[in-house]
C-alpha cells in the first residue's frame, strides 16, 4: 500500500478528456487593471457542464514577457469544441477585456504549437463601426478599435491547441476543516505549474458529480458515494473515519503539465500528514471507458 506521510494513496486514476484550449494574454497600464479584466473574463467558468467553458488565470506576466512591454496576465480557456471555445473567447473578450480600461489582448500560444486558429479581433473589430484600423506588425495582424480612453488593441486571431480537461484528485479527511486546509495547500502548489489552471472557486470543488440524475433534465448530479451525510443510506466509498472530501480539478495544455500539477498538489495535501486528519487521496473516474487520458495516482507519485 502506497503512503505519503501516512496518507494512503489509493490505487486508482483520474479520467480526463480532450478539450480545445487557448491562452489569452491581457495587458494593461498596471497589473491591477490587467487583473480586473482577467478576473472578469474568467468569471462563471468553473465547469463546461453549464458555463460553456472552463477558464482561469494561469499566471501574472512581467512587462518583459508581454508583447507590448506592459504588465499582463495569462488566461487559459478550455471548451469541449472549437465552435464553443470560439464563442466563449469572443464573448468574454468582448464584454470583459474590451470594456476594461487600458487593456489590450494578444494570443499566447506559440505559432508552431497552434492546431487551428480562433478569430478574436476579426470579430471584435466590428465594434469599431467602420473606424477600426488593421495593422500588420511582424507578421501578426492587430486591430485597433477606437474606445473612449484611446484604442483597444487586439490580435486578429489566436492559436488553439488540443488540451486536456478534468485531471482531478480527491482529498479524503477526518473533517471539513482538515479537508479545506489540505486543499488550500494543494492549490498553492499547483498554481505554480505553468500550462495548468484550476477552474473552480479557490481551485477547489466540494460538489463532486456523477453523470446523470434521477431527474430526466439534469445532466449531472451529486456523487452520493462521497457524501458523508449519506453514509449508511447509500453504498458509500468513504473509508471509516472519513468525514469530508474535497476535489481539485485541473485543466492543462498537455498531459505532462497536468501530471506535474497533480503530483505537486497531492504531495502538498499530504504534507500535513495522517495525524492532522488527512486520511487518503483518491481520484474520480468513470471506469476508464469515457475519457482517453488516465492519470494513475501511484504512477504520478512514483
Amino acid at each position: 500500500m502506497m503512503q505519503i506521510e501516512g496518507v494512503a494513496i489509493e490505487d486508482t486514476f483520474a479520467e480526463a478528456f480532450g478539450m480545445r484550449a487557448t491562452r489569452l494574454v491581457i495587458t494593461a497600464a498596471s497589473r491591477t487593471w490587467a487583473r480586473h479584466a482577467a478576473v472578469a473574463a474568467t468569471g462563471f467558468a468553473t465547469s463546461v457542464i453549464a458555463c460553456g467553458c472552463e477558464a482561469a488565470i494561469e499566471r501574472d506576466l512581467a512587462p518583459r514577457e508581454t508583447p507590448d512591454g506592459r504588465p499582463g496576465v495569462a488566461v487559459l480557456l478550455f471548451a469541449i469544441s472549437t465552435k464553443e471555445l470560439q464563442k466563449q473567447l469572443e464573448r468574454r473578450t468582448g464584454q470583459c477585456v474590451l470594456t476594461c480600461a487600458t487593456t489590450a489582448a494578444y494570443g499566447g500560444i506559440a505559432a508552431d504549437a497552434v492546431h487551428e486558429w480562433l478569430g478574436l479581433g476579426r470579430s471584435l473589430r466590428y465594434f469599431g463601426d467602420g473606424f477600426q484600423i488593421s495593422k500588420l506588425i511582424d507578421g501578426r495582424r492587430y486591430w485597433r478599435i477606437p474606445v473612449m480612453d484611446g484604442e483597444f488593441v487586439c490580435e486578429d486571431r489566436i492559436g488553439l491547441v488540443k488540451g486536456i480537461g478534468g485531471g482531478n484528485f480527491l482529498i479524503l479527511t477526518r473533517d471539513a476543516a482538515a479537508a479545506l486546509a489540505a486543499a488550500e495547500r494543494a492549490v498553492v502548489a499547483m498554481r505554480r505549474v505553468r500550462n495548468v489552471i484550476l477552474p473552480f472557486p479557490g481551485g477547489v470543488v466540494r460538489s463532486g458529480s456523477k453523470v446523470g440524475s434521477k431527474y430526466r433534465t439534469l445532466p449531472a448530479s451529486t456523487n452520493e458515494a462521497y457524501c458523508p451525510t449519506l453514509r449508511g443510506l447509500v453504498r458509500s466509498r468513504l473509508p471509516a473515519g472519513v468525514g469530508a472530501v474535497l476535489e481539485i480539478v485541473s485543466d492543462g495544455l498537455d498531459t505532462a503539465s497536468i501530471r506535474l500539477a497533480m503530483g505537486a498538489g497531492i504531495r502538498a495535501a499530504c504534507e500535513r500528514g495522517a495525524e492532522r486528519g488527512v486520511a487518503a487521496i483518491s481520484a474520480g473516474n468513470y471506469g476508464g471507458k469515457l475519457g482517453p487520458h488516465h492519470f494513475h495516482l501511484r504512477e504520478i507519485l512514483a
Partner: protein
Amino acid sequence: MTPLTLRLKVRPPCRIDAAPLSPRGLAGKSRTEIERIALGGWNETFAVGALFAVRGEDAGRVVLQGLEGSFLRVGAGLDGGELTVVGQSGDYAGESMTGGAMTVHGDAGDYLGAGMKGGSITCTGNAGAFTGSGRAGELRGMTGGAIVIRGSAGDRTGDRMRRGLVLVEGRVGDYCAARMLAGTIVALGAAGSNPAYLMRRGTVIFADRAVDLLPTFNHSGDGELLAIRLLLQSLARYGPAFKPLARRADRLSRWVGDLGAGGKGEVLVARD
C-alpha cells in the same frame, strides 16, 4: 559553398530584362547552362555568358556584380533565396516578388518593389520614384513585404500602396504615400510636397518635424498609441537608425486624412 556570382564584364548596348537571374531561375543549372540562358534585350537576346563572368555554385545566394542600371526587373518575381546586387539596379527591381531577400548595394531605379507581395528588399543607396507602388497602370501598389532604403527615395514613394512596410532612412520625394490604400511608410528624413495626398487608409510616420501637411489633414491628438508603439518597436530589426524612433513613440502628433478620400488614414509627425 560560395554564392553563385555573375560579374558584369561587358556593358550591354541596351536595356536588358534580368528577371531570369534569380535563385529559382538558376537553381540546378550547371555553369554552362547558366551561361546559355538568354536574356531579352531591345530586339535581340543576350547570352548570360556573353555579358557576365560566372563563378561560385550556391544558387540559393545569387550575387550580380557590377550592374550599372541597364538591367531592368532584377529580382522580379523573386520567391525565395537571396539575391544581392552590387552596383546600380535598374528600374522595376524586385517587381512582384513574393518572398526571399534582395539587397542592392548601391542605388535602385524607379519602381523598386512595384507590386511586391512578400519578402524583403534592402537598398543601401537611394531609390528612384514609385518605390513600393504598383506597376504603371495598376490600381494598387505593393501588397506585402518590406522595403528598406538606407538612402533617400524619390517621388511617389508608396503610391497606391495596399499593404506592407516601406522604410526610408533618408528623405522622401513629393507625393509620398499618395493615394495610399493601407500599409505603413516611415521616413526618417524630410518629405517633399503634398505628402499622403488622397490617402484612404494606412499609416505614415515622419520623423522630421518640418513636414508640411496638406490642409485636408486634421490634427487628431498627441497621445501615445499602443499600436504605434508596437509598430515602432518592431522596426528595430530593420536597422539601428530606426531604434531612436521607438523611444519617441510618445512624442508624435497624429493627423487624420486625407479628408478628400475618406480620412481614415493617419500621418504621425514627430513633435518636441
